C-alpha cells in the first residue's frame, strides 16, 4: 500500500513507538538486545520519547514502577527476549502486588521459530501469567497498535496493574498501515458499580449512622482513585478518625487532626488499639493484608466492616465484610456522602478517647529520648523530614524507600502531608527497589526533591543504577542507613531465633567511595549533629549526592506485632533506651 498522510504504512517497530507516543508516553526505561533491535533502530525517528538506558532490566521495571507511583501516569519499560525479559519479572511482580499501572514491552524471537528453544527464547507470557494483570504475545505488525492501546486501557482501568506485551522480531520488522484512532480499544469490560439506592448502600448508611467508634482504614486505593479530597470530606463530615496502611500514607495529611497514623505490624499502639476497640471499620481501597490485620481470628472483634473496593475478589478474602460497596472509591464516596447528615461535635469523644490512649507512647519514642551519642536510623529519617519541612520543600519531596527496618522507620518518622510523596514496595517487599524506583520518580517529577532511603543490604542489590543516575544527570539524594546488618532479618533473628544471626551480618563497600567512582559526591555521617547540615548540602547541591549514615547496629523497629499475634498484642517500645541495653549486652 502506498503511503498517504492519513494512514501511513510503517514497520511494526515504528507503529510501536507511534502508538506509545499517542498514548502520551514520553519516557521509556529499557535495555536493548538482539530480539528488540528493530524497535531500538526505529527509536531515533521519535524524538518526543526519551529512552533511559538502565544497567539491569530489573532496574527498568522498578523505574517504570517508580515513574507511575510518583506521577500517576503509566510507566513503560522495555527489554529484549530471554534473559532481558526474565530480569523484568521481579519488577512486574512488585507492580502487580501494589496495583501499579505499567507497560512492559519485550522483544521475542521470530514467530517462525517460536517454541523451538531458539537463542534467547523464553516463554515470557507464560512466566509472567500470574504476575501481570494481563499479557499479550504479538506476532503480526497489524496487531501492535490495537494491542498497545488495549494494554494501556487494561493497565489503567479498574484496579490498575502491569501489562506485558511480547512482540516477535518479525512483527517488529513487518509493515502495516498505522491508524491510531482505529486502533482504539472497545469499552473497558464493565466493572461492577453500585447504585445509590442499592441495598448495600442503604445498609452502609445505617451502619455509619449508628456507629459510635468508627475508623476509616485508608489504603492505596485512595491514591489510585484520586479520592483524597472525598476521603477527607467524608471523615470531617462524619468525624471519623483515619488509620492508614503503608501505601496509604500521604493520602490524608499526617498533620490532619483526624489522621491517626499507620496501622498494622509496626503501626503505633493507639492506632491498632483503636481498630481493636472500634465498632465500625470503613475500609477504603485497602485489602486487609496480613501485615495490617495481625491474627484474623481476633481482628477488630466488635466491629462491623464496610469494605469499599474496586476489585470484587478482595471482598471477604481475609476479613468478612458486613457490607461491600464495589466500585471506584471516589465515585462511591460521591454517592455515599450526600446521603449522610454531618455528625455533631460530640462525636469527637471517640477521637479524644484514642488520643488519651497514647499514654506513654511519646515518652517511649526514641525521637524524644535525649542524645546519648549514638546515631539512630529513626533520628536520621526524622531529620531528613525536619530539614525538608524547614526548607518548605516537604510537599515537593518524594521519598523512595527500600524494604526493611529503614522502610518502617520512614513510615513512622517521615510525616507525609501529600499523596505520592512516598514510593515504597509494600505487597511484594522488594529489596533493591529504592534506587531504580527513585530514578523513575525523578524522571517523572524533575522539579521535586527525590530522596532514596535504603539499607546497606538492599542498596547493594541494585547499586549499579548509580551509573544510570550519572548518565541521565539526575539530582537524586541517596541516604544509606548503614548498620552492617540485614536489619529486619537480624531483628527477627533476635526476637524469634534466639539471636542466631545467620547470614544477616553484611559487609559493604565504602559507599562514599563507590559514589565517587561514579562521579557522585558523598559524605559519611556518624553524629546526629551532622545529619541536618549534610542533608541540606545534599538537597541543595543540584546534583546527585550520597550520604552514608553509619547508624547503631542492633536497633529494632517498635512497636511490633509478632506474626500470628493479635493487633493489640503488640510489643511496645521499651521504656529505657533499647540501644544502651544492646550495647551492654556486648
Amino acid at each position, binding site marked *: 500500500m502506498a503511503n498517504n498522510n492519513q494512514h501511513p504504512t510503517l514497520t511494526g517497530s515504528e507503529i510501536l513507538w507511534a502508538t506509545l507516543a499517542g498514548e502520551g508516553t514520553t519516557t521509556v526505561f529499557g535495555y536493548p538486545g538482539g530480539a528488540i533491535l528493530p524497535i531500538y533502530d526505529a527509536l531515533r525517528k521519535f524524538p518526543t520519547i526519551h529512552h533511559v538506558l538502565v544497567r539491569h532490566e530489573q532496574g527498568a521495571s522498578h523505574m517504570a514502577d517508580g515513574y507511575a507511583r510518583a506521577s500517576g501516569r503509566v510507566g513503560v519499560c522495555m527489554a529484549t527476549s530471554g534473559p532481558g525479559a526474565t530480569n523484568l519479572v521481579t519488577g512486574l511482580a512488585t507492580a502487580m502486588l501494589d496495583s501499579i499501572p505499567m507497560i512492559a514491552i519485550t522483544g521475542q524471537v521470530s514467530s517462525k521459530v517460536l517454541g523451538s528453544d531458539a537463542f534467547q527464547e523464553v516463554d515470557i507470557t507464560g512466566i509472567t501469567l500470574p504476575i501481570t*494483570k494481563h499479557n499479550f504475545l504479538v506476532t503480526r505488525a497489524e496487531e501492535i497498535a490495537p494491542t498497545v492501546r488495549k494494554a494501556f486501557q487494561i493497565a489503567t482501568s479498574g484496579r490498575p496493574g502491569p501489562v506485558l506485551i511480547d512482540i516477535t522480531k518479525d512483527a517488529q520488522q513487518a509493515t502495516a498501515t498505522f491508524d491510531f484512532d482505529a486502533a482504539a480499544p472497545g469499552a473497558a469490560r*464493565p466493572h461492577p458499580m453500585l*447504585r445509590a439506592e442499592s441495598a448495600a448502600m442503604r445498609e452502609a448508611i445505617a451502619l455509619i449512622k449508628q456507629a459510635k467508634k468508627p475508623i476509616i482504614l485508608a489504603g492505596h486505593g485512595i491514591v489510585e482513585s484520586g479520592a483524597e479530597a472525598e476521603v477527607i470530606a467524608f471523615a470531617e463530615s462524619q468525624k471519623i478518625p483515619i488509620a492508614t496502611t503503608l501505601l496509604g500514607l500521604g493520602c490524608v495529611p499526617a498533620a490532619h487532626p483526624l489522621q491517626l497514623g499507620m496501622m498494622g505490624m509496626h503501626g503505633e499502639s493507639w492506632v491498632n488499639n483503636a481498630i481493636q476497640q472500634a465498632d465500625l471499620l470503613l475500609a477504603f481501597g485497602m485489602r486487609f493484608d496480613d501485615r495490617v490485620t495481625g491474627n484474623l481470628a481476633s481482628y477488630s472483634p466488635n466491629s462491623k466492616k464496610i469494605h469499599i473496593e474496586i476489585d*470484587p475478589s478482595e471482598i*471477604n478474602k481475609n476479613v468478612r465484610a458486613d457490607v461491600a460497596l*464495589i466500585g471506584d472509591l471516589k465515585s462511591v464516596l460521591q454517592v455515599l456522602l450526600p446521603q449522610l447528615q454531618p455528625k455533631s461535635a460530640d462525636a469527637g469523644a471517640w477521637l479524644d478517647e484514642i488520643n488519651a490512649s497514647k499514654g506513654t507512647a511519646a515518652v517511649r519514642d526514641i525521637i524524644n529520648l535525649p542524645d546519648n551519642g549514638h546515631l539512630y536510623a529513626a533520628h536520621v529519617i526524622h531529620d531528613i523530614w525536619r530539614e525538608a519541612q524547614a526548607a518548605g520543600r516537604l510537599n515537593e519531596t518524594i521519598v523512595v524507600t527500600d524494604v526493611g527496618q529503614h522502610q518502617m522507620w520512614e513510615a513512622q518518622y517521615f510525616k507525609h502531608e501529600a499523596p505520592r510523596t512516598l514510593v515504597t514496595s509494600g505487597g511484594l517487599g522488594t529489596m533493591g527497589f529504592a534506587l531504580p524506583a527513585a530514578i523513575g520518580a525523578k524522571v517523572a517529577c524533575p522539579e521535586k526533591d527525590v530522596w532514596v532511603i535504603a539499607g546497606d543490604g538492599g542498596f547493594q542489590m541494585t547499586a549499579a543504577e548509580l551509573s544510570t543516575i550519572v548518565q541521565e544527570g539526575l539530582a537524586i539524594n541517596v541516604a544509606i542507613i548503614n548498620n552492617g546488618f540485614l536489619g529486619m532479618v537480624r531483628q527477627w533473628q533476635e526476637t524469634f531465633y534466639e539471636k542466631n544471626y545467620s547470614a544477616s551480618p553484611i559487609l559493604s563497600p565504602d559507599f562514599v567511595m563507590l559514589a565517587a567512582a561514579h562521579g557522585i559526591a558523598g559524605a559519611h555521617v556518624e553524629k546526629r549533629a551532622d545529619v541536618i547540615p549534610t542533608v541540606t548540602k545534599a538537597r541543595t547541591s543540584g546534583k546527585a549526592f550520597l550520604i552514608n549514615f553509619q547508624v547503631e547496629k542492633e536497633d529494632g523497629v517498635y512497636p511490633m506485632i509478632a506474626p500470628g499475634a493479635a493487633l493489640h498484642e503488640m510489643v511496645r517500645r521499651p521504656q529505657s533506651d533499647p540501644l544502651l541495653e544492646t550495647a551492654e549486652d556486648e
Partner: protein
Amino acid sequence: MLHTFVALVQDKPGVLTRVASLFRRLNINIVSLTVGESERQDTSRMTIVCEAPENSAHRIRASLYKLETTVHVDEVNRTEAVVRELCLVKVAAGPAQPHGLHSRSQIFELATVFRARVVDLAPESIMLEMTGSASKIEGLLQVLRESGYEVLEVSRTGRMAMRRGQHTSRVLKALGTKESGSEAGSDLLDLDPDALPNSDQLPNQFDEEVD
C-alpha cells in the same frame, strides 16, 4: 463442596492456561473442566467443577472475572441448572465372557434401563454411549462391574451446565427487558447491577456465605 462455574471466555490461545492457572494458584483441585463453542462467535463456554470450601464461591467467581479474557462468569447449583455429562464405555462382551453368548443381550438390557445407546459392536466388545448426571453414569458403571462384566475403557466428558428457565439476565434481555436492540455480541453487562435481577448482584453473594 462441589462448585460449578460457567464461564464465557475469549476463544484465543492461552485462555485455558489462564483459567487453569487461576485454580492452581488458589490451590483448588478442578474436578472437571469442559470447553467448547458457545452461542456467540469467538467465545468459548467452559463449565468448571471444583472442590472448594462453601464460602469460596464468590471469590472464585470474582477471580475468574478478573481475568481479562473472561467475558462472563456464572455460578450454578444443581437445583437451578441442568447438569449433564457424556460418557463412552467399552465393555468386554463375547463368547468368552462370564455370561457367554448371553453377555450381549444382558448388556443391551442394562443399556435400555439406563437409556444408554450401543454405538459400536465388535466381536469381543460393546461400546455404550450415555448422557446424564454424574450419578447416573456411575450407576451404569457400577451395575456393569457388579454383574461381572469387565469395563475395558471409560471416557467421560466432565460436566456441562446450563441454567434453567429465564434466570439469566441474558435471557431477560432476549425477552426485551433491557436494550433489546443491542447486538448479541455486546450485551455482556451482567456485572452492572442495573442490568441484573437482584439475585445476580455480586455483593449479595456474600449473604449466602458461611463464616
